């Protein structure tokens, strides 16, 4: 090969790789990216060895309302297969909170216990939500009172074209049934929140009599209580005689309902141990439902998270918006 020819071939070989090298993503914001790593096999659970091999992302959270000026963080990982995506989270939480107003019997009467539950929620864009990519939940959920898309604790997006996919893992109300509530977010109107539940069946059933003085259901004979002593709706039977209870007995006030259809798309496996929650959420990449975000591994997705530590909707720790990318 002549010198000129070698030089020419070398030059050509340099052109495309150089263009590739230098023309990548040049966005410069300090936004965190969670990389979902491809795997041929689905993680079997929280302790699957695959999780240990994946680089973790520590996502900082800032407290709001009663958690104002407090900070926490969630270690996050993600794996995807040809069919599904798996998220793995762990965060410190000194107390297991699954009370959610459970009834306590003192021998005479029933009293709802003080205490809420631990929760983690994720919001993805089904279709583009204006400025969600940069401001995250600040433009959808945690909006200031008086904003055009929020009123009296209700919130949503500002147009029907903007839709979000809300995954809401609840330690007391969904986790014992093995899923995270799957909802979606649409336009807020003055008389109706923008939050919707996905099609199908799920959520929780209130366990109280019509006069709200005591629980209506108890564990059916032959059935066992679920995780953390939670009574599942499918295992409940109406209380006919209070004498079966003894002082100090506790009965679940919000009974998780077995999910069906799009409502139960997001499967959940969790563990609270040694002062920390570990949680795995999984879902099909594309469920085929319009109320779910369809993950295309070629794309990047914006999402944000909120953490609730034994608290209601207003009191949360919120993350900034993150980018979810897929890597084969």
């Amino acid at each position, binding site marked *: 090969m*002549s010198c*000129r*020819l070698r*030089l*020419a*071939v070398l*030059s*050509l070989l*340099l*052109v*495309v790789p*150089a*263009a*590739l090298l*230098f*023309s*990548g*993503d*040049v*966005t*410069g*914001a*300090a*936004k965190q990216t969670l990389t979902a790593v491809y795997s041929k096999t689905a993680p079997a659970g929280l302790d699957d060895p695959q999780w240990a091999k994946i680089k973790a992302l520590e996502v900082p959270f800032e407290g709001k309302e009663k958690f104002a000026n407090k900070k926490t963080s969630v270690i996050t990982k993600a794996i995807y297969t040809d069919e599904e995506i798996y998220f793995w989270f762990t965060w410190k939480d000194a107390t297991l909170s699954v009370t959610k107003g459970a009834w306590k019997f003192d021998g005479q009467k029933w009293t709802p216990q003080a205490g809420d539950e631990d929760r983690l929620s994720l919001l993805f864009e089904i279709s*583009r939500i*204006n*400025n969600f*990519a*940069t*401001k995250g939940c600040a433009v959808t959920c945690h909006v200031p009172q008086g904003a055009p898309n929020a009123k009296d604790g209700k919130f949503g997006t500002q147009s029907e074209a903007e839709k979000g996919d809300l995954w809401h893992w609840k330690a007391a109300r969904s986790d014992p049934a093995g899923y995270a509530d799957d909802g979606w977010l649409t336009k807020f109107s003055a008389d109706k929140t923008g939050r919707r539940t996905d099609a199908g069946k799920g959520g929780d059933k209130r366990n109280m009599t019509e006069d709200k003085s005591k629980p209506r259901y108890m564990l059916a004979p032959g059935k066992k209580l679920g995780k953390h002593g939670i009574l599942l709706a499918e295992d409940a039977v109406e209380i006919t005689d209070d004498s079966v209870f003894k002082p100090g007995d506790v009965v679940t006030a919000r009974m998780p309902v077995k999910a069906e259809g799009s409502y139960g798309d997001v499967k959940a496996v969790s563990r609270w141990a040694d002062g920390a929650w570990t949680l795995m959420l999984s879902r099909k990449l594309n469920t085929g439902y319009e109320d779910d975000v369809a993950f*295309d591994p*070629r*794309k*990047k997705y*914006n999402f944000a998270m909120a953490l609730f530590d034994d608290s209601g909707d207003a009191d949360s720790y919120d993350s900034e918006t993150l*980018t979810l990318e897929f890597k084969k």
Partner: protein
Amino acid sequence: MSEPYVMLEEEGRTPPPQDGLLCWLTRPRLPSETVCWHRFFGVLQLALIALLFLSGLLMAFSYTPVPGTAYDSVDYFQFSLPFGDIVRGVHHYAWNSLLIVMGLHLLRAFVVGAYKPPRHPVWLSGLLFLLLMPLFIITGDLLPWDQKGYWSTQVRFSIISSIPGLGDFMVQMLRGGGLTGIVTLTRFYVLHVLLLPAVLLGILALHLCLLARHGLSPPMDGQAPARPPIPLLPSGLNRFLLLLLAAMIALAAAAYFHPAPLGDPADPSDTSFVPRPEWWVLFLNQLVSIFKGPFTVVGSAVIPGGLILLLAALPWLDRSPDRRPSRRIGVLAAALVVLIAITVLSVMGYIEHFVRPEH
């Protein structure tokens, strides 16, 4: 083409006269070196431009130049339409490759002294071509209406406005108002798909006409080319198509394995976004960083403009008729200094924007 015709051509003999369109089409001759294994940067640029036009045309069918929907239309094209990711990727990698090939083409022309009379008009038309490319990139960058494009444009407006006298006027003309919005996007779109391509075709035609008139730069030893000329059709066209095909496959493969980036949708209220300069402007960006305050214009206009003027004036500055590099040590040494300075500034910019942890 008939076999005897090819045989005659291969033997360097003139084929018998023919009549009709075929004859007319096959009559023009090209120097064999126009596109051959060791000299193809010029034609490769032509191939890349053809790919840019073709992929751009396909993208234009789906694009809407309105801030509220521009991003969605690009997203839809790239991820929802069949081969959208490949087409957009080809467009993206084609302009990146074009810049590199143009640089190499310029470097070669410089080293072999192709700018010397009588070929200096070819050199000057090539420089015009070079100057036009950044305008394409700058206008195209805003079109997806993503964070990178939006905030890069803001930075560019800021740099342009530092040019004394003309700067603010130019920004006003480009932006069309006080804020970068729908008027800006429309203007950039029109510039990118109508005005600039028309100018490009004009410059291209001028460059090719001048090339046809003055010819390729001959070998430096002054001897005539060893190979006989080739007919434009089909031999010249076949070589071009071969190069076009090779470039298309390479760029499509790049697009398949590394999809063209599409950042977050533009949020004009997100002042925390810091755009990183692209590779081809790293040295210019670094110049702007060095010369601050009232001296910004030195980095943004005086030095880059001076370099362009130097390149344009080169045929008159280097008057020696000898094109051999060994006889043009002074010019080559000066060019080497400039190249080293550009490289050092680019590396500094790369470290500042891509390596430092705060980014």
